[in-house]
Each structure stands twice: as C-alpha cells, then as structure tokens.
C-alpha cells in the first residue's frame, strides 16, 4: 500500500511542479555525430560532426570529409538521421511582458505616455512565465523583448529563453530603442478620428519626434555632464552607434519618411513591419536598412493586392537585395515562428533562406551575430535537434535543445496537462 502511494506521488510530482527548472551549465565536452546540420548561413552539412566545449561550438565539420577525433570528447552522441539547426531568434516579441492579454495585471508591455525612450523592458521580463516554455519547445531559444505603445515605446533587450532571473536570462541589454512612426495615411474606419484631426495629429507627432531627436543629439554631443535628462540620456547610444533605432511602420510613405529621418540624424535604423517594403527596396538597399517582417500569416493590406502578398513578401525583399528577418509578434504566438517563416518557403524562398531569416539575419540585426545565429565554431553552443523539418508543422519535433551549451528542459505546462489527461483516460502517449 505504502509503495503504491509512493508510486503515485512520484508519478504526479512533475505534474505539480509545472514550472520548468533552468538547466545548469554542462562542462562536459560533447560530440554530436551524423546529423544534417543546417548552419544558418545557407550552408548544410549532410553528415556533420558538432563538438561542444565550455558552452561553445568547438567543432562544426563534415564528418564525411574530415576525420573526427572522438577522444577529445567526454561523450559522443550519434544523431544520424536528425536535423540540427541553430536556435531560432524571435524578434519583436512581448514574451515575458505579457501573460494573459485580457488580464491587466499581467500586462507589462505598454508604459503610459508617448515618449518613453528611457524605459527598459528587460527588468520587466518574467523568467517564470508559463508561456515561455511552450515557445522554446518549438525551437525558439532567444527573444527580443520589446515594449509597445506611444511614439517611443522604450528600449528592448535580447534574452535567452531559459534563466533563473532576468539578469541571468539577458543576452544583450538595451540594444535598441523602438519608435512607432506616426501614421501617414488617412484612415476611414469605424475607429478613426475625423480626417482633418488625423492629419493634424500626425503632423504634431512627427514634430515631437524631430524635436526630441534634435535635443537628444545636442545632449549627446555636449562635452561634460549636462543637466541630467533620463529621456535624452537613454538616447545617447543612438548617436554613437551603440544602439539601433527600430522604427515600426508599414505604409510606404512612413517608410520613406523614417529612412530619411534616420539618415538625417545619423542613426542606424531597422524597419519593423514593412508591409509596403517591397515598394521601397531600392531606398532600403541604398540606406542599408534591414527589415523585420512581422510574419507571413497576415492578410494583404489592400483589397486589390495579390492575395498571396504576405506570403511572397520575404521573397520580394530577397529579390530586391534587402536584408530581412522573419518574426512572429506577440508572446504565446511566437511558438509559430517556424511556420510563419515556413510559409515563405512555399512562395519562392529556399528552406535555408528561411532559416537564415530566423537565425543569422536576426542575430545581425540584434548585433549578437558574433556569438550566436549560426552553427559556427567559437559561437555559443545553441542548437536544436529535430527528427524532421522544423519549419513544417507536420514534421516539427524538437527532441533536444541546447542553449549556450546547456541542454534545456523542453517540457511545458501544456505538455503536463496533456500527460495528466491522457493518464485520466488511460490513453497511451504516442
């Protein structure tokens, strides 16, 4: 009887402890052999050898061509038949800032006021969110945590999606400031203000932005210590190249205005959204502005547009020679990032190109490509092992994920509920 009780307790333990425990650094040297490695830069290695030591990739090689020294590793794991990818990087998310959309107490992504360049998302990032494990179990290992709302929403940071606390999770802090470019089209919609009001408000908003950046630029160029202003202080990095300005807009006029604005101010710009970016490829290319596309699972923005426009958009940018990443906004929705990208491969991109758009290019845009974004020697050992193509929902099956050298727990609250009720009904888990 006692045994029976203990057995039940043991069985149900993982169900009660629903939060996933962050993993410890593994100092063992591990070699993974035989998988198809998708490097992230467009290349693949059919029979790969991937060596990890001290949390970094020590070896990325073609085992068919090179003799691999297995003795240099504590463990050698054969993963032939599997696919290995770099961990996916999710741009422009509110992961950790939002737990339940409709419950105000769980919403920490939108500070009051219009100009908030000083607010920092990273300190609000909730490492204990129940949502995050459901996202990383689909292959997303890093996320840009972005504040929203107003004209200037604040500063974003990049986090690893596994950590005890935000200081532990942060991968690059405060690297970008987010500007929502004022709408430059007159809307006719059930929610829209009268047309003259819209024109007036846009004008005023653009003036406010110009004014703020002029002040910030002057502030940043002053020698000595000026009278401290948190807004202007936080914007210093924009003018010395240590911070990027992520400009969120979609309409072609807004894109043109934003590019000119950043050029004028000598600011590194990233365009987020960019529904109309296909009309502006020359401009974006000439000014070296990368684009963060907010997925492909969107409707065309105009009735007359090609019904497939959102699916084709990544391909059109590629044709235009634009550097682009594919993102999936929101928080719980980010788990569909591979499929948002995958859809683009049905419309002109190759599968390796969509991988680049969710790894290497994302890393470059976030200035973390020195340490992650590809399977390359010397970079942080972050990778996914899947039994099938991760970009297709019918084959996406992440069996193991390694984040900065640590194998992370792929369980999540939904999986636990699945087990709990499969058990209730006496069904076998497939």
């Amino acid at each position, binding site marked *: 009887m006692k045994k029976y009780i203990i057995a039940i307790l043991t069985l149900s333990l993982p169900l009660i402890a629903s939060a996933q425990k962050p993993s410890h650094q593994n100092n063992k040297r591990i070699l993974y052999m035989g998988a198809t490695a998708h490097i992230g830069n467009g290349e693949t290695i059919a029979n790969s050898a991937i060596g990890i030591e001290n949390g970094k990739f020590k070896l990325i090689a073609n085992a068919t061509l090179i003799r691999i020294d297995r003795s240099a590793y504590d463990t050698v794991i054969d993963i032939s038949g599997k696919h290995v990818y770099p961990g996916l990087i999710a741009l422009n998310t509110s992961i950790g800032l*939002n*737990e*339940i*959309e*409709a*419950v105000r107490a769980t919403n920490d992504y939108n500070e009051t006021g219009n100009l908030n360049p000083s607010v920092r998302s990273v300190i609000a990032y909730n490492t204990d969110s*129940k*949502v995050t494990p459901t996202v990383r179990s689909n292959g997303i290992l890093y996320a840009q945590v972005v504040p929203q709302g107003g004209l200037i929403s604040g500063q974003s940071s990049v986090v690893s999606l596994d950590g005890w606390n935000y200081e532990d999770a942060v991968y690059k802090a405060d690297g970008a400031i987010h500007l929502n470019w004022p709408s430059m*089209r*007159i*809307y*006719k*919609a*059930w929610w*829209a203000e009268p*047309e003259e009001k819209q024109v007036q408000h846009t004008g005023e908003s653009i003036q406010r932005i110009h004014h703020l950046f002029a002040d910030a630029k002057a502030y940043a160029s002053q020698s000595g210590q000026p009278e401290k202003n948190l807004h202007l202080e936080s914007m210093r990095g924009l003018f010395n190249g240590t911070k990027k300005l992520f400009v969120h807009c979609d*309409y*072609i*006029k807004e894109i*043109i205005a934003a590019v000119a604005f950043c050029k004028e101010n000598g600011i590194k710009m990233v365009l987020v959204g960019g529904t109309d970016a296909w*009309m502006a490829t020359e401009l974006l290319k000439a000014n070296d502005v990368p684009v963060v596309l907010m997925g492909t*699972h*969107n*409707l*065309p923005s*105009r*009735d*007359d547009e*090609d*019904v*497939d426009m959102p699916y084709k958009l990544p391909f059109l940018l590629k044709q235009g020679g634009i550097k682009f990443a594919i993102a999936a906004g929101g*928080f*719980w*929705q980010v*788990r*569909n990032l591979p*499929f948002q990208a*995958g*859809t683009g*491969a*049905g*419309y002109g991109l190759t599968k390796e190109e969509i991988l680049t758009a969710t790894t290497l290019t994302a890393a470059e845009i976030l200035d973390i490509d020195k340490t992650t974004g590809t399977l390359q020697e010397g970079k942080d050992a972050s990778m996914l092992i899947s039994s099938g193509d991760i*970009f*297709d*929902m*019918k*084959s*996406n*099956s992440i069996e193991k994920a390694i984040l900065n050298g640590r194998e992370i727990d792929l369980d999540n609250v*939904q*999986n636990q*509920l*699945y087990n709990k*009720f*499969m058990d209730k*009904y006496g*069904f076998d888990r*497939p």
Partner: protein
Amino acid sequence: MGFTLKFNIIAVQPTISMKINAIILGIFVSLIPIVSVSQTTFPVNGIPDKRSSVYVFTNATLHSDYQTVVENAMLIIKNGKVEYAGAAIEIPKNAIVRNLAGQHIYPSFIDPYTEYGMPESGPKGDKNKGPQITSKTRGAYSWNEALKPEFEAHTVFDINSEKANEFRKAGFGTVLSLRRDGIARGTATMVMLGEGPVHEQVITERAAACYSFDKGSSQQEYPTSEMGAIALLRQSFLDADWYQAGGNKAETNFSLEAWNKNKSLPQLFETNDKLQALRASKTGSEFKVNYIIKGSGDEYQRAADLKAAGNKFILPLKFPASLNVSDPYDAINVSLEELKHWEMAPANPSLLYKEGIEFAFTSYGLKEVSEFLPQLRKAVLYGLPKDIALKACTYTPASYFGVATTTAALKKGYAANFIITNGDIFKSSVIITENWVAGKPYIIKNTQVADIRGIYKINAGKLAGNILTITGGQPYDLKGTLKEDTNSTKVSVSYSENILQLRFELRTAANKGVWSLSGYATAKGFKGTGLNNESASIAWDATRTGADTTTIPVDTAKIETPEWGQLTYPNKAYGFKQFPVAETVLFKNVTIWTNETEGIITHGDVLISEGKIQQVGKNLAARNAKIVDGTGKHLTAGIIDEHSHIAVSNNVNECSHAVTSEVRIGDLLDCDDINIYRQLSGGVTMAQLLHGSCNPIGGQSAIIKLRWGQSPENLKMKGAPGFIKFALGENVKQSNWGDDFRIRYPQTRMGVEQVYIDAFTRAKEYEASLKSYQPKAGTIPPRIDLRLETLVEIMNKKRNITCHSYQQGEITMLMRVADSLGFKINTFTHILEGYKVADKMKAHGVGASSFSDWWGYKYEVIEAIPYNGAILHQSGVTVAYNSDDAEMARRLNQEAAKAVKYGNVSEEEALKFVTLNPAKLLHIDDKVGSIKVGKDADVVLWNDHPLSVYAKVLATYIDGICYYSVERDAQLQKEIAAERARIIKKMTDEVAKGGGEVKQPSFRINKLHHCMDDEAH
C-alpha cells in the same frame, strides 16, 4: 435685387369667330370668373391680399408632362390651378399675359425624400453611462425607443423660408418631408414649397410611413446590430397583427395602434447600400409589404437582383467626389472598388432604367440642393433618356405618394406648380428663371429687362470717343469690351432697375487702373458719373451708334459620351465579368484524399461535372472533359470553416440582451467581402457564419458556400440545417467590458445557467400556450414571439446549437441543462478545455470545433492546450479545427497539420478536421466533406501534400465551378493593374480640369470580426 414684371394688360373684344371657337373648345365657360370667397380659419393682420388674377403664358415650349411637349403653347393659370395647357387659344379677358417665346415651361420637380420643415432631431444622449435596458419614452408607447410609428410629420411641419428658397431655386415645387429618426419613423407629409401660410402648403398629411435599419436617437441598447433591427421590424409586424386581432384587449399600445393605422400608406424604407436594399426588400416581402426604397446610388452593382426583388426606388444624385490620386503613394490606398464606383455611379440611373427598375430622384445627400440639376444632367449624359429623367423628378415621385393626378403635370385642374427656363433644361447653359408654386411666382432670375446690347461711343474724362460694345447671349446676361487704341479690354456690365454699371481695368500708361461708371438711359444712350483710374469723380456718357453684331460663338466643344469599365461581380478587384459555370473536369494521376474508406489514392482520377463528383478511380476517361494533369499534385475535399465571421455586414453581435435567438446572421450577408476570394485561394469552400459570443443565447447562423460574385441569398447552402450560436464564459459575463457594464444579467457563471433555464422554461410555456389555444370570440390570441419560436425549434430538434465555450465546468453545465430539457448540444466551439471532459462530451454526443493552438488571450484559456484536438479525437468525439479569423481561415490546412504535431493524429484524420468533420458537425456530410461519387464537386487542387506548410492551392471548385485558380488569379492581377491605371489617369485628368469636388484619398479599413470581440457597440 428689385424686380418688375412687365405684363401687358390686354382687353380684347373677341370677334364672333373667336367666340365660337372658344365655345366649341369649352374653354370660355370655365374662364368666366366664379365669384366665390375662399375661406380660411386664420385671421390676417392688416388687409387680406388674396388675388385671383388670370395669368397667360404664350409662345412657350410647354412640357405638359414628362413626355408631352407642345411648341408655341399656351398655359393659363388661375387661383393656383392650371386652367388650360396646350396649343394657343383665345386669350381670356383681363388676363395678365407673358410672352415666353424661346422659353420652356416644365412641371416643377417633386423631391420625395427631404427633411424640409422638420424640427432638428434632439441631441443624442451621453452614451458613457452604461447600458440603457428599457425605454425612457413617456406613455403607453413601444417598449423600444427606436420604434416611433406614432410620429406624424405633418403635426410638426412648418415653413422654412430659407430652405424653401433653396429648393425652389433648384426647380422643386413639392417635397415629401419626414423625420429620419428611428427604425419605425412614423409618417411623412407631402407639402408645397410656397411661402405662408403653412395651412396652404400641406397637400397630404399622412403621405407615407417611413422605416430604416438605424435606431437613430434611441439610447436603448436593443438593437445593437442591423440584424437586431431586422428582427425588431419582423417582431413589430407580428405584434401589430396580434394587437389588431385582440391584443389590444390585453394592453394599450399607441405605437402598435399607429403601426396598424400606417399600414394603408405607401411604405418607405431608407437604405445605405445595395445590400441593405435587398435586405429591406426581403424583410418587407415576408409581410407582403413592397417598400419604396430610398437607395444609395450603388444599386447598379446588383441591378438584376433588385429588379427581381420588385421594389420601387428613390435614388440620390450624389455621385462620388474625385480623389486626388496624383501621388502614386496616395493612389495605392484607393481600391479598385472605389475607383470603379467613382467612374460608374453617374450611370446608376441609366443602368437601372435599362434593367427596368422604376425610380424617382431626390436631392437628399447633396451638399447643396442647387447641385441637383447639374447632377441630373450628368445622369442624362451617362445615358439616361431625358423623358425618364423628367419622369423621375415629376410623375414618378408624385405617383409614389398618390398625388400624380393633382400635380407633376400641367393639365387642367392640376396645381399650378411649374418652372420656366430659358431653354432645354438639360443644356448646361440653361437656367431656371422662375418657379411658380400654387400659382405664385418666385423669380430666380429677372429676364424681363430692356435689351441694351449694342455699340456705343463713350466719353469719360480722359477717355474720349472709345468704342464700347455691349453684348451677351441674353438681354439679362451681358458683357462688354472697350477699345482703347488697339487694345481691347474686358468690361463687366450689369443692367438692373434701369441702372447701368460698367467696370474695367485699363493697362495703357495714362489710363492704367480700375474705372467704374454708373448711369441711366437717355434717348441717345447712357449718361452718368463714375470714378476714373485715379479715383477722381468724372461725368460720362455713351452714345449708341449701332446694333451689336457680335456673333456669340456656339459652344462646339463636343461633349464626349462617357465610357466606363466593365461591371464585375462583385464590382471590385477579382470580381467576375461573367458568372462562371460548372465545368466537366477530369483530374488525372493525382493523389486523392478521399476521406472515405478508400483512404488516400495515389495516381488516381476524379471526374466532376454538373456540379457533382461523378467518378473516382483510376484510368478514367470522359468525353468533353477538361483534363487537369494531377501529377505530383493532391486533390482534397473543400475546406469547411465551422466557425467564421467573414462576409457579414457591419456587426456579428447583437449584444443587447442575454437572449437574442430572433436575430439571424443570414440577414446580413455581405457577398462583396474580399475575404471570400482570399479564402478561396486557401481552399475554403464553405463556412458557418456565426453570431458573436456576447450573450448566452446569440443569433442564428448562416451556412454558406463561398460562391464569389453571387448575391447574398445565393451564398447560402440550400437545404442546410438551422444552427444557432450559444456562448459561455467571459464574453457573456461581459468580464472584459469595463466598469460601465455591470448591469446586464448575467454577470457570473451562476447567472448564465439561470438564463438558459429561464429561457427554455418560457419557451416551453409558450409552445404549450400556442398548442392549447382555441380561437373563439372574446379570447386574445397568443402573440407570436420570434425569440421563443427559435427556442422551441431547438427543443424540437429543428435547430442545432454551436456553443462558444472554454472552461470545463460551464461545458458540463450546458450539457446538463440540455439533458434536463430533452435536447442535445450539437457542437462546442473553441472548447479549449474540452479535453478535460472528453468522456462527458462523448457520452452527450456533442462535437468539438476547436482552435489548434490558441491560448494566452484571456484568463479562461489559461489551461488551453494544443493537444486538445488529439485527446478529443482519441476519445471518439468528432473534432474540427476552425478559424474564427479571416486570416487563419485561408491556411486551415496548416492548422490541421498541427494535430499531427501535437498529439500525433494521423495525416488522413488530421485533414478531416477541416473537411469531413466540420461537414459532420453541420450535418451536411451527405453532400460535402469528402471525395465521393454523388457529392457536391467542392474540391481543391494542391501543388503539394495538403498538410505541408509549403503547399499552395492551385484551384478551388464549388459545385463544379472554378471560383479560384492560380492562372485566373495571375490574369486578374494584370487586369486589375491596367484597370486601376486607366481610371487613375481619368481621375487625375478630371481633377486637373477642375470644377468638381476633390477629396484626399483615405485608407479604408473594414472590420474583421472575431467572436471574442468584446463588441458593445
């Protein structure tokens, strides 16, 4: 401006022969003045000024009605009535005679849709104070503030001189006045546009009963939607019948009394677009009412359907303004739909005429009434015959409201309501000079002036002996030139009340500057004083030296007959020029996902024709079939979205009451929604369009096929069973609506159960009372209640429930409520915690229509899991995946694939989640949902494995008709680009020419509906 009519008073002694003629004609007798004193009830301050002069208008071109023209005609009027109209006859004694040679007389226009003389509607109250459940109207009137049939326009009508003047200037003599407030708006009154007293202007007190779908100033919650307005109208018809049949013994209700009293009047319905017109027509015809519909101007887009509906129309002549599309970045925000409508709207009347639809015109909607005539001419330019245009301004509106035998024509005994023009009214240069209302003249342009056109020698200070030429098309429309050496200078000339005014600006050095001269006529010419270029006072004179010989150049600029692009169905991007027809197609060597026991057939053939699947097998052959090579491709049944809100106009939620089973989504179908086409491109062939989720018992669903281009009624699947939306959880409790919404019952899960029990208890009692009623004298018949009728249908298993649900407790509760009442819940939709009660659901026999992987958006989905579908499926529950979202719907195949990822459902079964299983849930699986001989040919051809993220739809067939194919789509994109470019150029040219109204383009965002929208309003 002062004015004198130059009448020639003639007193002719008639000769014998003239007398005889007149007697034969029977005219003379009637012209003998009958001495009768007209009486009034109202005292007059001062000396009464009643005149009974006889006016005779000679030599005019008389349009005695819209189709009869008499040249050199005579019109005789007296006491406000026409005495004679026709060929010239003897002029009666003591008549005031006007020679109208060269001028035209038309019956004055009748505007059948105005707010003339109505008081301003009261201000809308403060809407931020939470819901108003009951009416605040005092007295025994309707329960609903939007029903005001008791209102009678004639009781508040008063003359508005300023407005009357505007109408008269535009050619109107009579208007219908109504108050545009409410769904039932009460009666309208027919009035003339004369000046006082008001007692003499009202022609017909109660001329029409007016309706709309807009609740107007009502602050009451119900109805929040157009389908609620339709339901309210339908219930009102029934209530009024009940009231008449004895209900008035049970209650006193002045609104129902008025409704019944108004039944005998012409019924007039205001609509905002062609689809509303179809809805109004359908609503009326159910109760044998054929509304006169006040249209919106886009009726040409569904002319055949409107013709079939059989209503008469009142059409506005407001045509869309040009848009400033010279900036291509602005132009891209303008849709082809807007461009096409801009181009075609002026042809609306001519196209409806060709369709055989009867219509009258209204100035309603024009910024200024004065635009009416120019717009009328534009309609004629766009192909409307002139007589029909006149008819629509005169006879037709009169005939609608029973005054065609007293006005709208110039015949003996008719009201002397007419206008005088200086030519054919359809010529752009022609103006209305006079408007006579009930025999009283209102002068718009004084044409009775002396002709001073000629050549004059002018002396004015430094100017000596210069030649002034006064010329112009009419004596009252003058211009001049002044010769100064070899220079010719324009002179502005006006001659009024015998005062001549000249003004000109000279350029030669000595005389440079503005000169202005005023003077009076002398025997030789003119004489007067003025100011020279140095503002010094000078005397001047001008001596006539000869007649003006200037020939006025005839405007020879050819007026181009407008052309427009082809009408498409719908009239926007991706519309059909011709309705497509069912094809005979043989798909060869294709992978067939049959959804039947045959499973997945590789290298198979499928033959479709006459809208059905004819053969499924291998090595099929068929004569006359279009062969589609399916090598490497996949053929599946069409995707069926069990939970959709596309193709619905305006609003999918009637949020006012906890129970709104009387409202019907099927009343609001929007066949023009571009999302129909977009979803065809994702392989969707059918959808259940559900009411929203803001009340425990919502409205009735519509089950449609995505027949792009067809009318709303043709979207509906014939023979599909009835469904209704129920809802549980946060939305019905208004949990996320803010603090103003804490009143409507229920606010908790506890209350939700009580709502159901109460609703069905009342429905049971209702059904019993209907069954037990024995009609006999003195008993009050039961009142038909549309809300309860629907609930009775549910209890009698004639209507199925699709219930929005998340949390397991509520799910069980509703099954138990249904069990206790002896019916079943058909489908739980969303059902994100279904996996917790899969066994109970299986036992109840209810199906599940879920999201693949949604969660995180509200508290009640905190335990939603993407394995839900797999567990329910494994438990033996029929599982579908739906979209509830216009975007997701077009890749439901990808959502189905997630059932493979989360829970390892087999690929074959996963595809059924979006094809056969929703068909089963909708009880239409005998017709659709699989590739089986005899079923509807609703099939989709894919370029790849249909569950793959890389798969793309190549063609979508419904009933064997190809509604989407990649080839046609590519062709259409080219045509759309060309058509856009053509119209944008035309519009840019038009804007450059100037004249018309020009607006900045705006970016239209149409509302996309989700059932979790917390739509209060």
